[in-house]
């Protein structure tokens, strides 16, 4: 039982007790889609341990990217450049590793992501350009860079330590991609929910003027969230390179829409001020499950894209409805 309520007599006690649809829609959606596939694809191997764990492994990079995007969107910004940051980071890691070894390669991959984030962040926070336009431009810019870096070739990644650590390996019987997912989600959630930085991110996205007059450095928050997003996209690039044992300019190209959908479905508002790391994780798993199930159902790639598009539409509709209430 709660201890004697200091909030005194005469006032109605408790929360504004309304069901917050938008906050929980992802969990219902996840369950519904799971049950749907479990029944429809009963005989197609959807429910096997192998298939389910494959879904988690395949969504690891998208989940990592989604964590960064929760920070960015909560601050009222957007980062479209993650779509090409992944490839640039993976290629930077692969090329550097082949010449200078493991550590240099990992640092190059993460560094490339952070540099993209720094560029986005400076342009958004200090030059005060809209993040949508800045990151749309850098999305294209780095898609070009990753193509010209390698003449459209794929770079093999042969370092066994690297591919084990970031890709196909396991620790204590649990695949390393699951470790990365769990660790990133746990740390992301802790920072987002329990630190002053997380609170300031939400305040900036909610009301940047109020945040500013309250002594929060709004530009510093904007720069930091974009660097977090860039850094995590860099990590996602390493995970792709590790799992596929190669880096190519196409890595992450199709992830942008999936990641944005995962974040929005997961309860993060497009306009900032509210969000959830756990929701983004579940959203990402849901999108992965959807991809997997649609493939098992025998849908063509184009039909899969249509279904995904419709899901995003529904998610955005719920998100905006919530915001305008």
């Amino acid at each position: 039982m709660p201890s004697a309520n200091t909030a005194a007599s005469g006032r109605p006690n408790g929360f504004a007790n309304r069901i917050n649809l938008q906050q929980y829609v992802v969990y219902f959606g996840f369950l519904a889609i799971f049950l749907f596939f479990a029944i429809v694809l009963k005989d197609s191997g959807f429910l096997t341990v192998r298939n389910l764990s494959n879904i988690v492994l395949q969504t690891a990079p998208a989940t990592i990217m989604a964590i960064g995007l929760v920070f960015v969107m909560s601050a009222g910004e957007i980062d479209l450049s993650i779509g090409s940051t992944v490839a640039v980071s993976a290629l930077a890691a692969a090329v550097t590793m082949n010449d200078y070894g493991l550590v240099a390669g990992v640092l190059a991959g993460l560094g490339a992501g952070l540099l993209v984030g720094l560029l986005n962040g400076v342009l958004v926070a200090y030059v005060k350009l809209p993040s949508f336009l800045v990151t749309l431009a850098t999305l294209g810019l780095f898609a070009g860079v990753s193509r010209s870096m390698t003449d459209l070739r794929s770079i093999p990644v042969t370092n066994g330590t690297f591919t084990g650590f970031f890709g196909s390996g396991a620790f204590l019987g649990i695949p390393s991609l699951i470790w990365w997912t769990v660790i990133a989600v746990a740390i992301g959630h802790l920072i987002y929910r329990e630190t002053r930085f997380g609170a300031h991110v939400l305040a900036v996205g909610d009301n940047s003027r109020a945040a500013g007059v309250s002594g929060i450095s709004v530009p510093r928050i904007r720069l930091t969230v974009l660097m977090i997003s860039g850094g995590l996209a860099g990590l996602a690039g390493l995970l792709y390179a590790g799992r596929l044992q190669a880096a190519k300019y196409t890595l992450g190209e199709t992830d942008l829409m999936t990641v944005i959908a995962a974040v929005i479905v997961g309860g993060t508002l497009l306009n900032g001020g509210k969000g959830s790391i756990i929701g983004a994780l579940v959203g990402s798993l849901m999108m992965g499950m959807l991809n997997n199930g649609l493939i098992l159902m025998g849908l063509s790639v184009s039909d899969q894209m249509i279904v995904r598009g419709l899901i995003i539409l529904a998610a955005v509709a719920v998100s905006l409805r919530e915001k305008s209430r």
Partner: protein
Amino acid sequence: MTVNAEATQSAPVLRLQDIRKSFGGIVAIENFSLEVYPGEIVALVGDNGAGKSTLIKIISGVHPPTSGTMTIEGETVTMSNATMARAHGIEVVYQDLALADQQSVYMNMFLGREPTNRFGLLDRRRMIDETDKLVKELDVRIPSAHATIRDLSGGQRQGVAIARATHWASKLILLDEPTAALGVAETAKVEEIVQSLKSRNIGVLIISHSLDQVFKLSDRICVLRRGKQIGVRETAKTDKNEIIAMITGLQHS
């Protein structure tokens, strides 16, 4: 001892002397001098464009004055931003309230100044307890410290903004049109809260367009017209006609 106590009693929390502020060639405020004592409510009145907002910005550190001195409890201060004003114990309740609508009441109470525990994590328990305590003391009737600002009425929001200022202000609270957007009952409630600030021994400077409110709340009234200080009157020794004449510059008494 008694002499000392009396001396601090009578020392103004805020003293402005010959404040002048110009933007380029345009003079927004000149020859402005005012003292605000602890436990005193001073109203700042004047027509639109008289310089009230500029004055608030000077006192809250947003615009440093072009010339003139500002002292807080006898200490001369120069401030170049709002953070410095807050460090000096001055809090502002802005007209737009500066609340983050989707956050809880307690997060807003501590916006930008969140306490942390020894692990560097947010100390929610402390924020909630202190919010509950203050909200109770000021009789701001909100459902709970967890309530989201968006779900509160205009009066409740104003109450939260004033409670926040009260929590942090050790010297002076500036209130910019605190009831402009409120209905009759809510205005009465907010006026009651403002009135109760007197017992906390901090100075209150209030901007209001409602002379009824000014006469109800204030101890002294300072009139501005076109950036010039027209005069300061003790509320008990003046009347609306005189104040209106001072505001408009039309003599008819």
